[in-house]
């Protein structure tokens, strides 16, 4: 749920002295002060360095995100602060410590380009709430790049290359040895056990909700009845969507926002990307899906029966689980009156879209099976 669009950077400039301070001004002043104290306590502001350009990003539903720079003489370093939101005001509840453990492990392992993790305020004693600070990756996401040109002028061969680049990035996750991941990470004993556990989680989400949701029980049974061929378990990013992949000027791909990372079926990441393309304006993976599948198979050694567009329909539904179970938990809190946060209540508006998307995807999957059977 990273927010990276340059034009979305909401630079909340501190107003001139004497001007009436807005809530945004106060927040920026407060954060600048906290960051200065935090970094000074870690000897990161030597040589007269100063914290500058603090601005909050708007555009995601998960963490509170800030950009800032540390400037000293003629050197400027840029950072991203990812902070827990106030309790029960987010759709996704994740753990900064776990994210930090993943980031540091992946950095040490070295296979995947990630933003370097720099500091953590584990309990939020200094920054206000638990937070991590990372290097700011110099890149733009595919949504920004897509919008750079009109539909008529868009160079589709470049986007085919980017689709291939994304497939290579996702394929690289499967090369991260599981033993290099933090010890605290759950490692399912087998693919079957993992899938069965995911199906049970779908049922648990439904069971914990305030009213019966027939579609969720249908999906749990559908996932169980239509499991694809197994593949080796691997690192899964868990929120692979356009906002979370930055492409630099050399066309290198950087994955950010590792808060939902886990060990699971690697096809989940492609499935979730395809789910998000159903509601965003840059569907370049869907446009070149055969090429993406071909590249991903070449990168991972999976067979065509293990990874093809129809199998990815399965994972377009299956991979929604991580995001969805947090969403339902928050909506339950809203229903129970434990929160009245707008962005939590707003989930009620998003749910029909998710339900409809799952149904269309399942219909497409079943149609493909019927066609195969008819041959």
């Amino acid at each position, binding site marked *: 749920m990273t927010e990276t669009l340059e034009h979305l950077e909401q630079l909340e400039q501190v107003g001139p002295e004497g001007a009436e301070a807005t809530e945004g001004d106060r927040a920026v002043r407060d954060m600048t002060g906290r960051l200065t104290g935090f970094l000074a306590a870690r000897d990161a502001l030597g040589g007269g360095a100063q914290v500058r350009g603090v601005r909050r990003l708007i555009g995601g539903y998960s963490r509170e995100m800030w950009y800032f720079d540390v400037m000293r003489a003629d050197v400027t370093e840029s950072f991203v602060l990812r902070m827990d939101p106030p309790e029960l005001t987010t759709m996704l509840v994740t753990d900064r410590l776990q994210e930090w453990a993943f980031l540091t492990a992946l950095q040490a392992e070295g296979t995947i380009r990630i933003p370097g993790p720099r500091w953590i305020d584990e309990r939020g004693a200094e920054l206000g709430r638990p937070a991590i600070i990372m290097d700011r990756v110099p890149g733009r996401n595919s949504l920004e790049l897509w919008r750079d040109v009109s539909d008529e002028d868009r160079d589709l061969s470049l986007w085919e290359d980017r689709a291939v680049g994304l497939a290579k990035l996702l394929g690289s996750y499967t090369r991260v040895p599981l033993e290099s991941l933090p010890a605290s990470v759950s490692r399912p004993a087998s693919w079957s056990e993992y899938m069965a556990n995911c199906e049970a989680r779908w049922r648990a989400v439904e069971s914990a909700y305030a009213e*019966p949701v*027939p579609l969720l029980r249908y999906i749990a049974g559908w996932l169980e009845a239509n499991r694809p061929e197994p593949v080796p378990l691997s690192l899964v990013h868990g929120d692979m969507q356009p906002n979370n992949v930055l492409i630099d000027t050399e066309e290198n791909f950087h994955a950010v926002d590792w808060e939902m990372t886990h060990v699971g079926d690697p096809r989940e990441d492609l499935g979730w990307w395809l789910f998000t393309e159903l509601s965003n304006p840059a569907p370049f993976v869907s446009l070149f899906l055969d090429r993406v599948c071909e590249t991903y198979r070449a990168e991972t050694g999976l067979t065509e029966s293990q990874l093809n567009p129809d199998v990815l329909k399965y994972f377009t539904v299956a991979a929604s689980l991580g995001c969805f179970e947090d969403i339902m938990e928050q909506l339950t809190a809203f229903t129970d009156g434990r929160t009245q946060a707008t962005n939590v209540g707003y989930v009620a508006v998003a749910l029909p879209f998710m339900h409809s998307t799952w149904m269309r995807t399942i219909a497409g999957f079943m149609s493909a099976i019927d066609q195969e059977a008819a041959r």
Partner: protein
Amino acid sequence: MITTPSTSQLVRAVSSELRAKVLPVLTDPALNVELEMMLSMLDMAAVRADHETAWMLQEADDIEAALSDAAAAGSLPEPGLDALRALQRSQPADLTYPAVQRHYALASEALARAAEGAHGGDDRLRSLVWSLLEGRVGHELATIGAYVAVGRSENQA
């Protein structure tokens, strides 16, 4: 009681005024997103105010009729039969929201149990469940119109 203007008209009026007069003058982007979300919620509430009770009763009737047919044909697994019987015994005491919601929850449970058994190889049951789910999600979609994820960067100009 006075029924005009209707609940949905009142809600839509609030939504329209907020959109026209408050949204343009907000300078804090976080508040702007929050208000956009509130407006989406109000729009949904307006549609629900007009239709929700009728939709719940209609869906419950459709579920009861379809599952009764499935039960008569021997297609409905035992857990579904139990839930269907509970639904058949239910009648909303009145048309207040909680009474209708309780009745609808019984219908939802019956459909959910049928959905659990829909992948056991009985294509007729699967098709019936699917059709009922389509009706349900169709009503859900009617409450939101064209969904745009408010505040998400992909949907901002």
